[in-house]
């Protein structure tokens, strides 16, 4: 903004402003707000937006608002706010700067307005370039018969070896399964021993060796003998606990002897 342009307000300029104002009013509807109007005014200066005379533009705008008032055209508030601001800007630009006054200078305000106009213009150009691009569905195309992705749900079953073995074990323990018993050839159970001893105990009035209670066929083979001895001993403890027999052992590792407990029978 040179000093010259600021103070160069001739009669011709007034006429030009009037004409510009008339032109704006003719198609006021076509404008997108006051900035748009200013941009149009700026363009009439036919110079680079960076070099426009903001003052001249402000004067034209104010003339436009005045003219609108004369013609009793109702302007939106935006336009009036802009007019007030431009009037303020004009005074700042015309009067010598007051050093006591705070706030931005007229030059700064004008520069920002010029920037805003340039930015708006730039965005408009960018929008035009964007819309001029090849567009999907107009210049280039997507697949006409898209194949959608089908969702397939598959159920997969799983099991672990442990589960398999447990299942089998469960089956084998639930039922009396032959091979299972065969496998226990050499085991003489506590139950078996108890069973055998209950039948014999009534005849044991005197101390008898525990080993004499071992069943037939379990005394020769060491494995069988061991199993039968252990079971028989456990059974004798069980009977003693029930109060049916008495046990004694003269010394460590000496033969264990037992006899019927007389009192238990009497009661």
């Amino acid at each position, binding site marked *: 903004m040179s000093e010259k342009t600021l103070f160069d307000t001739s009669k011709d300029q007034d006429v030009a402003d009037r004409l510009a104002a008339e032109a704006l009013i003719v198609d006021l509807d076509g404008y997108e707000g006051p900035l748009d109007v200013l941009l149009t005014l700026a363009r009439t200066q036919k110079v680079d937006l960076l070099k426009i005379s903001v003052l001249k533009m402000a004067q034209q705008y104010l003339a436009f608002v005045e003219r609108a008032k004369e013609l009793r055209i109702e302007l939106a508030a935006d336009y009036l706010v802009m007019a007030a601001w431009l009037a303020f800007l004009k005074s700042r630009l015309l009067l010598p700067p007051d050093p006591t006054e705070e706030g931005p200078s007229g030059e700064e305000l004008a520069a920002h307005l010029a920037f805003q106009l340039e930015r708006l213009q730039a965005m408009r150009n960018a929008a035009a370039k964007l819309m001029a691009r090849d567009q999907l569905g107009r210049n280039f195309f997507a697949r006409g018969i898209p194949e959608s992705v089908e*969702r397939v749900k598959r159920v997969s079953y799983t099991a672990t070896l442990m*589960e398999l073995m447990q299942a*089998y074990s*469960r089956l084998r323990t639930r039922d009396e399964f032959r091979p299972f018993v065969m496998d226990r050839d050499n085991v003489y159970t506590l139950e078996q021993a108890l069973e055998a001893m209950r039948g014999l105990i009534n005849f044991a009035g005197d101390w008898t060796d525990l080993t004499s209670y071992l069943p037939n066929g379990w005394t020769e083979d060491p494995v069988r003998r061991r199993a039968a001895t252990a079971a028989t001993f456990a059974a004798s403890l069980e009977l003693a606990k029930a109060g049916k027999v008495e046990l004694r052992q003269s010394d460590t590792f000496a033969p264990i002897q037992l006899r019927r407990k007389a009192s238990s029978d009497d009661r």
Partner: protein
Amino acid sequence: MTDESANTRPNETLFEAPPMAEQERMVEAILFASAEPVTIKDLNARMPHGCDAAAALVHVQKRYEGRGVHVVRIGEAWAIRTAADLGFLMQKETVEVRKLSRAAIETLAIIAYHQPVTRAEIEEIRGVSVSRGTLDLLLEMEWIRFGRRKMTPGRPATFVVTQGFLDHFGLESARDLPGLKELRAAGLLDNRPPPDQQDEEDEEDQDDLFDEKETS
């Protein structure tokens, strides 16, 4: 359509038809973008005057041979379609993993330990009938298959486990399944009856003894 546009644009006959490579591009683009299969007639109507859509199509079709998509004929029309062997890409598979039912795993265990085994034998061991569904499931999973028929009256079918079964359980062969001894050592094959049956068996106070045994 064809005749009409030819009539309304008579000047076009004066132009040379585009080179075949261009025509191929056109056929490619039209087949790609069209929402439905396109006939040769449609192609010719849409392409510039003088084009030979049928010839161009042959080239395009050849170009897509062995590719991920093919040019296929559908009735009188043509379209681009996914190669049949890549159909799986058009499916998004979600896998839900479930545990085998007790019936299924017991049946599987019996087959594994006793193979080849007939259905009647499985039922005898399980003590309950085996549903068709259970065997079907195991067959479908390819963990069991039919073995040789038994040389007994009625020649019943037998079941055996498959390589897939062995792979899944990390076994070299079914013979590698832990035997009864190992099961017992692992505490899986306890000779004691399940707790609910104990009451019936003994009325005397053996409980103490059993407890003792358990802690030892």
